[in-house]
């Protein structure tokens, strides 16, 4: 693993350029709306600010508008209303080829009639950058992405992972203000995918470039992003850093989409106590007004044998009796599906090597008050 200063050497001009013109790469979206046909709402009055140098992820299920939003940033689609500012400049009506923005497409979209070198150089050539400079920049970029041995190859001779890097190089070599990535890892197999997640994140930190990343994979979003915007039905449900959206989801949709969920409607609230279908639960705080949903993440639930002292008998724990209905062994963790007084609840226990509970076992379910997350919808 090279040190940070050493890797910066590979992009000397860029690192310098970016520290001067960091503001050139912030993005402000105001009131963006887009419809396809008469009834398909792709985006509904979206306001969003993306900071310069941020790894920003648009996360949501298919059809939530995330790709449309990315295409509007690239200029490939136009919004019906609203405005797009990149680096303080209004680019709402600027054609895609006149925007200092480059995209890594989901299918990579490498030109089949060009070899790797000419693919990477395409943008430089279109901007009229001379052959000598273009060659230098292509070779530097290829070296930094470790694809310099592929420059003479044809596209059909390459693997998915190699194509992904070339698509990345082809976009980055133009030194855009903003790099857009449209599910660039979705076509790769799991191992390569997690390697590239880490690599992309490092690359972004090294370049200090604004990355806008689109994915439907919540884990990918959590691993890579500085901030995540959750989209649902063309609207933004929540924007925040990964721990924020995970620990303080603002809606049922966010709670469901990020992580596994145990969601229970809250029927009444009295001080620190809430009444749910799971029973009375003690919460950490009495502030915050009414709450409509209680979220309990599976991994924070403690399980112990009934009658045992449990995690800490002196604490004001929520203790519920439960029975194991199903068990899924995952190696590092074990997932239990429990029946708690008729309610279904999922607990994910760390596999510490101790005896596992069996299907049918009676268990004690323990939940710390601070782990009961209240959602006010």
């Amino acid at each position: 693993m090279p040190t940070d200063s050493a890797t910066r050497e590979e992009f000397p001009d860029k690192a310098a350029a970016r520290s001067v013109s960091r503001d050139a790469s912030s993005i402000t979206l105001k009131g963006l709306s887009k419809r396809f046909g008469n009834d398909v709402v792709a985006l509904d009055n979206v306001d969003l600010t993306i900071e310069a140098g941020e790894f920003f992820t648009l996360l949501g299920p298919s059809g939530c508008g995330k790709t449309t939003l990315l295409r509007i940033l690239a200029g490939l689609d136009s919004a019906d209303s609203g405005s797009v500012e990149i680096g303080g400049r209004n680019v709402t009506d600027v054609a895609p080829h006149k925007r200092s923005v480059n995209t890594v497409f989901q299918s990579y979209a490498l030109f089949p009639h060009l070899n790797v070198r000419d693919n990477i150089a395409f943008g430089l050539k279109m901007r009229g950058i001379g052959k000598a400079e273009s060659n230098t920049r292509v070779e530097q970029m290829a070296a930094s992405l470790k694809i310099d041995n592929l420059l003479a190859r044809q596209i059909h001779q390459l693997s998915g992972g190699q194509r992904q890097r070339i698509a990345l190089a082809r976009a980055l070599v133009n030194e855009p203000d903003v790099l857009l990535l449209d599910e660039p890892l979705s076509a790769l197999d799991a191992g390569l995918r997690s390697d590239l997640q880490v690599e992309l994140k490092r690359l972004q930190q090294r370049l200090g470039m604004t990355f806008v990343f689109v994915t439907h994979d919540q884990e990918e979003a959590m691993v890579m992003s500085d901030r995540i915007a959750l989209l649902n039905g063309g609207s933004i449900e929540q924007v925040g850093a990964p721990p924020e959206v995970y620990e303080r989801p603002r809606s049922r949709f966010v709670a469901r989409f990020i992580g596994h969920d145990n969601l229970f409607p809250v029927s009444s609230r009295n001080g620190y106590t809430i009444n749910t279908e799971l029973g009375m639960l003690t919460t950490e705080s009495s502030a915050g007004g009414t709450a409509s949903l209680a979220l309990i993440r599976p991994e924070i639930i403690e399980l112990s044998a009934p009658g045992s002292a449990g995690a800490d008998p002196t604490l004001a724990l929520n203790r519920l009796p439960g029975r194991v209905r199903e068990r899924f062994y995952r190696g590092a963790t074990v997932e239990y599906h429990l029946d708690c007084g008729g309610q279904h609840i999922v607990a994910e226990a760390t596999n510490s090597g101790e005896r596992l509970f069996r299907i049918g076992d009676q268990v004690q379910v323990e939940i710390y008050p601070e782990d009961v997350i209240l959602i006010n919808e």
Partner: protein
Amino acid sequence: MRQRRAHPAFAVFWWLVLLFLYLPLAVVVLFSFNAINSAATFAGFSLRWYVSLFSNDAVIHAFYNSMVLALSSSVIALVLGTFLGYGLYRHRGRRMGWLIVLIYLPIVMPDVVFGISDMTFFVRLNSMFGILKPGMLTMIISHVTFELPFVALLIYARFVNLDAALFDASKDLYAGPIKRALYFVIPAIKPALVAGFFLAFTLSFDDFVISFFTSGPESATLPIYIWGAIRRGISPDINAIGSLMIAAVLVAALISLIFTLKSRKREGNLN
């Protein structure tokens, strides 16, 4: 992998097909080198029929007409067919998708129908407005119309096989409309352009029916000349013309094939 052996009857059938396909062609080529004026006995090798061919002004003129017709009509058909194929591609998802049927129709239309209707059309036009007198121009127009659907469908198929995101990628990589056409669209469809040109050229070069109905007195092509000559009896110089046409078509097919193989090597199985 296990190799399946063909049934012996199938092999016989196969050789019969080849025989009926190529034996007549071989006979034409052989007798074009005949030393005597006979279609029955081969009396030794000679180039006399080729010599007489090249001293025959009518043949030279017909060959010239054929070349002018085939070259100009296929270039025009290529340009128009490329736009048509691109238009079909761009609108394929919309309500205009059924328009492609109109492109297929001329391909299955009998040439005789095409020729007669073209002739009637041009004659009527000429008598009403005094324009488009039957001759090279009317032939070129007719040839363009029947070559056009073939070219358009080749180009269309090529576009359909391209990743649609490539258009976005070229826009994203700073190519304006003109650069997009020059550096992305034309190079990307080049194999189809080459194949379309050679297909149109050979279609035009060996067309008799449509040329016959739309030609004027001065614009006889090689097939029309052959037809006229044969009415006076088959002479060995017809064999020589036939052999030259076979050679020309083979060369065109070879160039097209080399090009296809080259682009296939570059692009894998995209074609």
